[in-house]
C-alpha cells in the first residue's frame, strides 16, 4: 500500500468509528447526556437495542414484508388476541424487514411507566399525538380491539382510530398476527396498503375504517 492509500484510510477512519460505536463510547455518551430524545420521548438507539434483544423471546416470520414502506409515514392496523406480545412481535417483524422502529399507540399516561415506554416508541392513543407522528414521517402501529376467544375474527375498529391517517393522507396497512401468548414462534402477515379517501366526511371515514377492518379479516381468512 502506498502512502496515499494509507493517508486515505486514516482520513476515513473516524467515520467508520462513528458508524460502529463501541460499548464504552456508548456508555460515555449516555453519561454525558449526548444522546437524542425526540419530542415524543423516543430514544432510537435504546429502542434499536430493545428490538434486537426481543429476538431472545420471540422469533417472527414476516409475510408480505415488501409492502412495508422503507421510508415515509404509514399506519399499521394490527389484529391482536390478548395484546401482550403483539406490539413487540410486530415491532420485531417490521424491524427485521425495514430496519425501522415502530411507534406503538395505546400507552397509558401514568408517571414512570409512560416515560420508560416512550423511550422505546410508545405513544398515547390520541388523535393529536398520532397526527404529529404521521406528519413527522413515522410508522405508527394502532392495535384493534382485543379478541381473546376468536383468534380468526378481526377485532373492533373505531372509525376515529383511522382519522389521523385520513387527515395526513397516509395509507393504512392491515396486519394480521398468528401466534400464542406463551409461544416463541409468531407469524405476521401484511396486507396491501389501503389509501385513505380524499374527502373526509363522516361516511367516508366509516367506510374507510370498514375497508381496513375487511383488509385485516381477509388476511385472517387466508393465512399463509
Amino acid at each position: 500500500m502506498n502512502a496515499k492509500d494509507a493517508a486515505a484510510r486514516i482520513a476515513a477512519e473516524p467515520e467508520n468509528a462513528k458508524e460502529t460505536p463501541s460499548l464504552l463510547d456508548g456508555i460515555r455518551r449516555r453519561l454525558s447526556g449526548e444522546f437524542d430524545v425526540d419530542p415524543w420521548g423516543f430514544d432510537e438507539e435504546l429502542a434499536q437495542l430493545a428490538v434486537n434483544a426481543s429476538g431472545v423471546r420471540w422469533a417472527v416470520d414476516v409475510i408480505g414484508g415488501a409492502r412495508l414502506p422503507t421510508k415515509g409515514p404509514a399506519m399499521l392496523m394490527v389484529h391482536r388476541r390478548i395484546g401482550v406480545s403483539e406490539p413487540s412481535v410486530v415491532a420485531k417483524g417490521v424491524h427485521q424487514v425495514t430496519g425501522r422502529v415502530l411507534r406503538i399507540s395505546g400507552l397509558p399516561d401514568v408517571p414512570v411507566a409512560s416515560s420508560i415506554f416512550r423511550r422505546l416508541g410508545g405513544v398515547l392513543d390520541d388523535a393529536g399525538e398520532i397526527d404529529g407522528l404521521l406528519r413527522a414521517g413515522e410508522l405508527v402501529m394502532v392495535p384493534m380491539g382485543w379478541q381473546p376467544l376468536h383468534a380468526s375474527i378481526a377485532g373492533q375498529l373505531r372509525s376515529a382510530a383511522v382519522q389521523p391517517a385520513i387527515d395526513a393522507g397516509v395509507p393504512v396497512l392491515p396486519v394480521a398476527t398468528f401466534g400464542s401468548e406463551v409461544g416463541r414462534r409468531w407469524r405476521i402477515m401484511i396486507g396491501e396498503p389501503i389509501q385513505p379517501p380524499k374527502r373526509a366526511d363522516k361516511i367516508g371515514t366509516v367506510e374507510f375504517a370498514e375497508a381496513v377492518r375487511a383488509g385485516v379479516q381477509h388476511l385472517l381468512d387466508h393465512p399463509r
Partner: protein
Amino acid sequence: MGANLTLAGGFADTDRVRIAITGIGGHLGTGVALELDQRPDVEVMGIDIDPPRRFLRNAEFHRVQPQNRRRIRKLLREFQPDAIIHLGVYEPHARSNPQASHDRSLFVTEAILEAAAELPDLASIVVRSGLEVYGRHRNTPMCPDESCEIRPTTRYGRTLAAVEELCRDFERRSDVPVALIRFAPIVGPHIPSPIGRYLRLPVVPVGILPDQPFSLLHSDDVAAFVLAAMDQRAAGPFNAVATGAITGSQAARMGGHLPIPTVGPGWVIARAITGLLGSPLPEHGLELLTRGRTADPTRAREILGVEASFTTTEVIKDLHEWAPVSYLEPNRAA
C-alpha cells in the same frame, strides 16, 4: 386602512411605518427593536416598566406602569401605529414575581386592545404567548399542534390563555389580524429566563428518570418569528419551537452539572433550595421538568416560512458555554 404595511415585508410606501412595541425593556423587546432599527423608514415607539437594554437609534421609549391604561391608550393614539408588537407578556420569575407577571400581562393587553379599537391605520398585532397554554393534563398529546385544545395547567398557562382570549375577542369585533406566537421556553445566554437560570445550577433537581423531553427556543430566534408574523399580517396561533428535544437530566449533564431525580414531596425541598440559590422554579418550570413540553413547529414553517436556527440541543450548549461570573479582586492599592 393599513396601506403602509406590504405583504412582502418590504415597506415601500412613502410614509414611514410606525411600530409600537410593548415590553421593549426586556431582552425580547429590545431584540425586536434592534432588528427594526436595521430597516429604513421605520419608526418605533416602545413602552415598558424598564428602559431598553441596548441603544436604539430610531426608537422612542416611554416608561409606563402597566396599570396606567389611560397613559398607554394616549401614547398609542398619539403615535398612530401601523403595527403593534405586544411582548409585554411577563413570564413569572423572569423579570416579575408570579402575581405581578399575571397582573402586568393582563393590564397591558387590555390597554393596547382598547387603544387598538381606535387606531385607523393598524394592520397587524403580534402577541407573545407560550406553549404553556396547551397545558399538560393526563392523556393530552405530548407534541401538540395549533389545532389542539387549550387547557392550561399552570398559572403562567392561565395568564397566557387569558391574554389569548382577550385577543380573540378583539379579533372577532375588528378586522385587524392578531398573530399569537406560542413560544417554547425562551433560553439564551443573556436572557433572564427561569428555566435557563435553573439549568445552570451546579446541582439540578430533575424529574424521575427516565425524564420527559422538552423543547426550547433560542432568544436570538424570537425576532424572526415576530417580524415574519407582522410583515405577513398573519392571524391565529403559531408554535415557535426549536427542532429536537432534550430532557432535564441530559441538559444538566451536557453542562457537566449533576442531575438529581426528584419525586413528589422532594420537589418542595428542591424548590426551596433552588430559590435560595437565586433560581426559583415557577410552577410551569416544574411541569416542564416532570411532564415535558414540546410542540409541532410545522405551521410556522409553512405559513410564516420561519424556522428556528438553533436546535434545542444547540440552545443548551450555548447556555452552558456562557462563561460563569468571575469576581475581580478589588484594587486596594489606591
